[in-house]
């Protein structure tokens, strides 16, 4: 079947082509399509019966006709050739080189859809990764094998935050990052892609990075393949070559929008905001490829970047993502406008795996309590700030005024830090205590009395 070209297209529109009279085509099979200009396009079978086969064309159906379109069924799923040589390379969304160098040749070609990891084979992520960013390390820490997205909005510096994490992330006790980076951009602008490329270059890690780029002006349907190709490469690096892989994917919103676009063409029943009902499962197929496996050295830590449409965290894309990922780092416009970098809004941010990766044996005994106390004190301080906005700061009690001062200092000094400032976890925790010491010890009930005695500066009276 592979060698035969069929010219039996009966309809073509919106990226989908129907082929008639090709019996026995396998579901999910890859397709090569040659148009009248001799250009080769690729696609995938999404529905198959003896009398009609529905093909999704990644490059779209623009400038196709029915009469001069030849289709070849390759009889295998989409596969990515893999070898050690992918490091340092730049590919397009379907794995073709876009750096002008020859394609990767390898007998090892893997189905980009992957296969679900057996839950019994997973190892629970417990190793604390120091990112050098206090708002993350101190309060929403990342562990090796975790999937922790950055929820952002248009115009917020999520790319810079992601790049800083890539530059600084390392295990405690490691001199420098041992990570290999897989970077996937879909629907990204040329400027964004260039920003990351330059950032990797500057930090001298370019030969440890694999990039998969599908830019904003490239076929939408290819976007569905881009993260899958990138994750297939990541799995190979992590579980075949024992590397610790950091996957950065941006922007998940562009991915979900591409999925919606294709779903509408396929005629799928919409659920929320026109997104198909399987958006959750589809996102999970991607996110769940992060993790660790028992008896394997490597790991996949994932940082998807996602811009929340109109900064709305309840929009289906961030909402469903939040249900799958192990927490989220939320960037906020208010802090960004005040010039705080990184503008991490800590209260809605969360790391679900933090409880098992910090504290005694991992970072420092007091870490979990300090984090909890910072959350509680800052939440209380924001209430006071709300009150001050109504009744005026001069009407506040002394205690409340101190709380207000704490909030300001916390935002400026703890959350805010330099883009090249790499704080150790001890520096982060010491800073936390310095700030908590602005508050009276009896109001700090999330930390133990012993910890108060040891770390509280006792200055507040």
């Amino acid at each position, binding site marked *: 079947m592979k060698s035969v070209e069929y010219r039996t297209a009966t309809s073509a529109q919106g990226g989908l082509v129907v082929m008639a009279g090709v019996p*026995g085509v*396998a*579901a*999910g099979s890859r397709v090569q399509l040659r148009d009248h200009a001799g250009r080769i396009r690729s696609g995938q079978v999404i*529905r*198959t*019966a*003896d009398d009609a086969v529905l093909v999704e064309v990644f490059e779209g159906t623009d400038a196709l006709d029915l009469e001069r379109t030849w289709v070849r069924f390759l009889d295998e*799923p989409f596969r990515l050739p893999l070898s050690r040589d992918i490091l340092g390379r730049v590919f397009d969304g379907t794995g073709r080189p876009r750096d002008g160098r020859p394609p990767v040749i390898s007998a090892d070609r893997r*189905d980009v*859809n992957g296969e*679900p*990891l*057996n*839950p019994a*084979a*997973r190892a*629970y992520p417990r190793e604390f990764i120091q990112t050098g960013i206090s708002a993350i390390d101190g309060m929403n820490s990342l562990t090796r*094998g*975790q999937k922790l997205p950055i929820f952002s909005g248009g115009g917020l510096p999520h790319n810079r935050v992601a790049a800083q994490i890539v530059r600084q992330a390392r295990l405690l006790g490691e001199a420098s990052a041992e990570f290999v980076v897989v970077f996937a951009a879909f629907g990204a602008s040329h400027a964004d892609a260039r920003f990351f490329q330059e950032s990797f270059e500057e930090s001298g890690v370019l030969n440890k990075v694999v990039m998969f780029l599908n830019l904003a002006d490239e076929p939408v349907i290819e976007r569905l393949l881009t993260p899958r190709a990138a994750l297939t490469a990541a799995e190979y690096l992590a579980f075949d070559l024992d590397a610790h892989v950091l996957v950065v994917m941006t922007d998940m919103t562009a991915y979900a929008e591409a999925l919606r676009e294709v779903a509408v063409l396929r005629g*799928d*029943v*919409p*659920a*929320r905001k026109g997104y198909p*009902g*399987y958006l*959750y*499962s589809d996102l*999970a197929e991607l*996110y*769940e*490829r992060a*993790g660790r496996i028992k008896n394997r050295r490597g790991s996949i830590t994932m940082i998807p970047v996602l811009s929340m449409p109109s900064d709305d*965290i*309840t929009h*289906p894309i961030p*909402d469903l993502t939040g*249900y*799958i990922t*192990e927490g989220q780092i939320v960037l906020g416009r208010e802090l960004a406008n005040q010039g705080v970098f990184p503008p991490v809004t800590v*209260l*809605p941010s*969360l790391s679900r*795996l933090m*409880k098992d990766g910090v504290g005694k044996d991992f970072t420092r005994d007091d870490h979990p309590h300090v984090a909890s106390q910072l*959350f*509680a004190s800052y*939440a*209380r301080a924001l209430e006071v700030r*709300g*009150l001050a906005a*109504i*009744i005026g700061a001069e*009407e506040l*009690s002394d205690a409340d005024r101190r709380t207000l001062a704490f909030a300001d200092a916390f935002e400026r000094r703890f959350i805010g830090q330099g883009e090249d400032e790499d704080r150790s976890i001890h520096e982060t925790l010491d800073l936390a205590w310095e700030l908590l010491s602005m508050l009276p010890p*009896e109001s700090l*009930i*999330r930390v133990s*009395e012993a910890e108060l005695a040891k770390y509280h500066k006792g200055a507040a009276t």
Partner: protein
Amino acid sequence: MGRILEINGPLVRLELPQTTIGEQVRVGRLGLVGEVIGRDGDTALAQLYEDTAGLRPGEAAEGLGWPLSVELGPGLLGAIFDGVQRPLQAVWEQSGDRIARGVAVPSLPRDVRWHFVPDPARRAGGMLKGGDVLGTVQETESIRHRILVPPRVEGELLELAPEGDYAVEEIIGRVRLADGRIDKLQLFHRWPVRTPRPFRQRDHAVAPLITGQRILDTFYPLLKGGKAAIPGPFGAGKTMLQQQIARWCNAEIVIYVGCGERGNELTDVLESMPLLTDPHTGRPLMERTLLVANTSNMPVVAREASIYVGITLAEYFRDQGYDVVMVADSTSRWAEALREVAGRLGQMPVEEGYPAYLGSRLAAFYERAGRVETLAGDHGSVTLIGAVSPPGGDFSEPVTSHTKEIIQTFWALSKELADARHYPAVDWLESFSGYVKSAAKWWAQHVDPAWESARAEALDLLAASEELQRIVNLVGVEALSGEQRWTLEAAGLIKEGLLQQSAVDAVDSFASPEKQFMLLAALLEIHRQGMKLVRLGAPARRLIQLPLLAQARRWKSQHGSDDLAALQAKRAAIPDAFEPLLQEYASTAAPSVPGEAAL
């Protein structure tokens, strides 16, 4: 033998005459399994439990002759199964880290021999009926597995194997049925998951399920055999709360169904359960626990099946006379799987794309909970706790609103509380329990007759403080009277000293009913003592400065459930802390410093 006509995602159209809806089918060269969901002439529509990539029209298909069933017998406890009861540990050993398609591994291990002890009451020649106990197998240290006669079997016991070691497939007995046929009995039997297992009659639920979580047990109790829902937006701590319940509740068997959730969460349960001990029996928790895992990246049709597999396993242990808790995380993912298949079938969507039968399916599922008199005349119960994941935390969405009509206990999780790291983030205003009256009887009998009134007093205090907080948010705390300020402070004490409970703190993680009540009573005592003083004219400001208030907030994590005497002593010492102020204000009919009382 039939063949495949069309493949569309997880749905395949088959040429397969004379098949029954619900029947299992095996299709294609890989031997993928699924179930028939529709018939049209000689064609059948089936949904497959595995990914269909690579399947082609023209490949073979066959009906297996039975509906989706589970194997029930020794070997269930401590295991982790997928959504169609494949044992994931064995699958891992056989097919590696990734779940290969078409893997066929029996649910119960065939090579393990169990020590079977026949029931002395069973003799050859005696009559047997479904649900009777043939004998027992000590499956784990704490659980004795009762070997049951399959529910629909009835007749004369011809022979029963003597005490000894048997594998699950060995014949341990024979029964002559009413029609003269002879049926063989084994240590296990199969049961179709979509059919509720029969029982003699429903019983009243009487005892509360003790979870060790104060906000649940003390404020919004659930009974053994009851139905509860935990709705909450992401990040509100749903999973943590469910894991806490699975860990500490006083059920004899816990079935944890991870339906469309994270892989790492199940790994967490798998890794942590064997290390934790059951506070009620002192045995490792894994001995009473069974996991069903269809994580979010596993095929969607098996996800739909997984909660039925879970509830059938729960009913099987109920039929042995056990109190079983099943935690389903999350019923929303199950509903979404239903929606996805309905969408592919082209069924008319009603709300948010869900099919019209969503409500009735949910109701039928929750009806499988309950306390019953079993066929053997024992008492057993299935308590169902379903997590709901409302999109955007919107409780008016279809799954949450339908669920709310069905269940009796509603533990609403709040994003605001979670953001302030108030855990468990159970919202005391949104939550409710229809079981308070029944629970009150138990608490009065087993813990303290004052439970119901203390609970009401605390809830009143919380409601009043909510009202006052609104005023404070508008005009500031200075506008409140002394009594009001004290009320606000006491409510804060209840929230921090009682409602907040740390799952990661070894002492605080579990609180016995006695500890829960003692803590509640102590904090209310502080409130009453303070109120007395405020009414005597003491300024609330001075009361708030009492060190007792900061100290009382720590009691929960200072004294474990086995250290109640110390807590009792602290409670008894409460009046002492107020004594100096009482001296000062009781002696003067009027305020000692004019005007200070007004502050």
